[in-house]
């Protein structure tokens, strides 16, 4: 054995000293007088200084995005152009987000409820509301799977404890409910579905017998090829339900409870599922509503912010404990324990315990990434930026075996295929099977209603008639290069490259 390493069994000095998890001593790094109570990324904070540290992080993440233009840094000048929608899942992050947003941005309402007068008087600029109206929105997913508990009543109790916030409950099956779609301004036309057994995702008319939204939701979920796809699809449905709700409630901001740890998890998970082109949208996005307000020249935009993006999971847990907040909790088993999301979560949470700064390095590094090319519209399913030529690229890089009797589809018209309208991640979600999953026996599966509108822009004048970046079914086919895939024998391949062969 080498002398430099020593023998741990006989020489106790050879063992490396355990490093403390904090940098200097046990005194709070902020007040420098109190003994610390919590270690956050190697820094020690006492119970008195911890809340202000979290509040500063939230304000730093959100304040620059509140005003329509970001050149007004001061709190007293903050004024949003619309209302506020807070996404509330009942989980740890959104519980903390709801509490912090109400304390920071609706303090006058809280004081009023407590019978206190606002500091500086009612008309002081500091006491003016940043948003006129705040709404907390919850999407209940219990109907997606049999046997799941409906938590809407519990969630309502939590939201109603913030009495100046309104509560809007939604259900996951609303994504397939024509009544809901009409309510948010959509125009449901004929029902269309796709064939998930074909990579082209051919579109066909759906039988109207299956008109129950819950049945449609379950058909959609059961058709997905992997547990990872199920988790990813549900996240997308929730996100789009929230965005459409934000639009009808005239909200300028949609706030999510994603914290630093869960942001790093979703970044890594999204990239590993092929969502690299839209990696920026995982941390911040601006969604064009397609509606133009009176006097405005451009359609209104909803900003999707994550005010806890600098606050770790540990800080959230400490906040909840010290403020005695109630966490309803949410089901984490949707993607299975072996899904990409669950495996990434286990990895990142373990990493955070041993190397807490590395988790923030993931988020900071991803925030610097930008796609090489501009987006070519938006994906019909997730409505995130769409990269041009994805299907051609995928066909070029894929190695696949084609049976003799299975000629690749020629001249697949864009009129019948959904694939050209999907981003790489969504196409992979719908088509990438694991080695164990078998093709489904049912032929056609329903789609969320916003996909119909995306494919038929003329039908939804209310939504799409204001210059939104939608594509008609034929326009994309006309603009694209014509590619044809066919099987070529060895002689054919040889003759194609014969000019370049050395004799």
């Amino acid at each position, binding site marked *: 054995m080498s002398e430099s390493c020593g023998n741990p069994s006989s020489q106790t000095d050879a063992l490396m000293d355990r490093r*403390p*998890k*904090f940098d200097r001593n*046990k005194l709070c790094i902020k007040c420098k007088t109190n*003994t*610390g*109570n*919590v*270690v956050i990324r190697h820094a*020690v904070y006492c*119970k008195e200084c911890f809340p202000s540290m979290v509040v500063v992080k939230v304000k730093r993440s959100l304040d620059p995005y509140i005003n329509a233009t970001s050149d007004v840094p001061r709190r007293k000048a903050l004024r949003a152009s619309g209302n506020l929608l807070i996404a509330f*899942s*009942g*989980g*740890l*992050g959104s519980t903390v987000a709801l509490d912090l947003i109400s304390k920071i941005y609706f303090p006058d309402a809280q004081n009023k409820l407590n019978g206190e007068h606002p500091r500086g008087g009612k008309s002081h600029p500091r006491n003016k509301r940043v948003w006129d109206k705040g709404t907390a929105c919850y999407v209940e997913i219990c109907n997606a799977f049999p046997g799941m508990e409906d938590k809407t009543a519990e969630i309502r109790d939590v939201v109603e404890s913030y009495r100046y916030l309104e509560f809007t409950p939604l259900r996951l099956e609303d994504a397939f409910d024509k009544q809901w779609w009409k309510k948010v301004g959509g125009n449901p036309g004929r029902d269309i579905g796709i064939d998930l057994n074909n990579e082209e995702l051919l579109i066909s008319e759906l039988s109207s017998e299956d008109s129950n939204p819950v049945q449609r939701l379950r058909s959609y979920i059961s058709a997905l090829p992997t547990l990872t796809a199920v988790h990813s699809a549900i996240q997308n449905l929730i996100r789009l339900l929230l965005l459409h709700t934000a639009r009808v409630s005239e909200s300028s901001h949609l706030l999510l*409870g994603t*914290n630093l*740890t*869960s942001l790093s998890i979703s970044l890594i998970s999204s990239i590993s599922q092929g969502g690299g082109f839209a990696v920026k949208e995982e941390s911040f996005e601006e969604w064009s509503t397609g509606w133009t307000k009176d006097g405005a020249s451009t359609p209104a935009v909803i900003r999707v912010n994550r005010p806890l993006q600098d606050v770790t*999971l*540990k800080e*959230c*847990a*400490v906040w*909840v*404990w010290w403020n005695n907040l109630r*966490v*309803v*909790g*949410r089901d*984490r088993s949707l993607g299975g324990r072996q899904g990409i999301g669950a495996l990434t*979560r*286990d990895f990142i*949470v*373990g990493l*955070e*315990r041993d190397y807490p700064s590395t988790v923030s390095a993931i988020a900071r590094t991803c925030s610097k990434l930008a796609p090489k090319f501009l987006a070519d519209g938006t994906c019909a399913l997730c409505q995130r930026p769409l990269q041009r030529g994805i299907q051609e690229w995928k066909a070029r890089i894929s190695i696949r075996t084609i049976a003799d009797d299975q000629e690749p589809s020629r001249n697949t018209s864009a009129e019948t295929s959904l694939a050209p309208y999907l981003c790489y991640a969504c196409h992979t979600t719908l088509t990438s099977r694991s080695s164990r999953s078998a093709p489904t026996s049912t032929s056609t599966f329903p789609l969320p209603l916003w996909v119909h509108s995306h494919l038929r822009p003329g039908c939804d004048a209310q939504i799409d008639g204001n210059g939104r970046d939608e594509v008609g079914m034929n326009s994309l086919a006309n603009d694209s290069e014509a590619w044809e895939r066919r099987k070529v024998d060895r002689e054919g391949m040889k003759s194609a490259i014969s000019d370049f062969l050395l004799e």
Partner: protein
Amino acid sequence: MTFISLRIEFSGGLELLFSNEKRHKITIPAQVPVDNNPKVDGPRNGDTKAADMDFLIHWLREHLLKERTELFMENSTVRPGILVLINDTDWELEGEGEYQLKDNDEIVFISTLHGG
């Protein structure tokens, strides 16, 4: 043999693994085996040490945990994602598993993984 009394609290969904009871009052020996074996009752033979957090975690697994050990423990300590507070202070400031327990200490285990 002397004993020490402890107040234990589980939160963030962790209580579901412990008979759905949030608060527990327990008594453990002041001197425990160095290998953290919680099964030995009565006079101890062999090397002993003062009861510490490492032993407490093993004791809780043996005596209070009702199901799914893997959601509470991993590699002889608590699973990543579980925050431990000793008398309202992060256990990372107190030496984690090496913290020597005192009579009437309050130990809180908070799961951050129940919903986020």
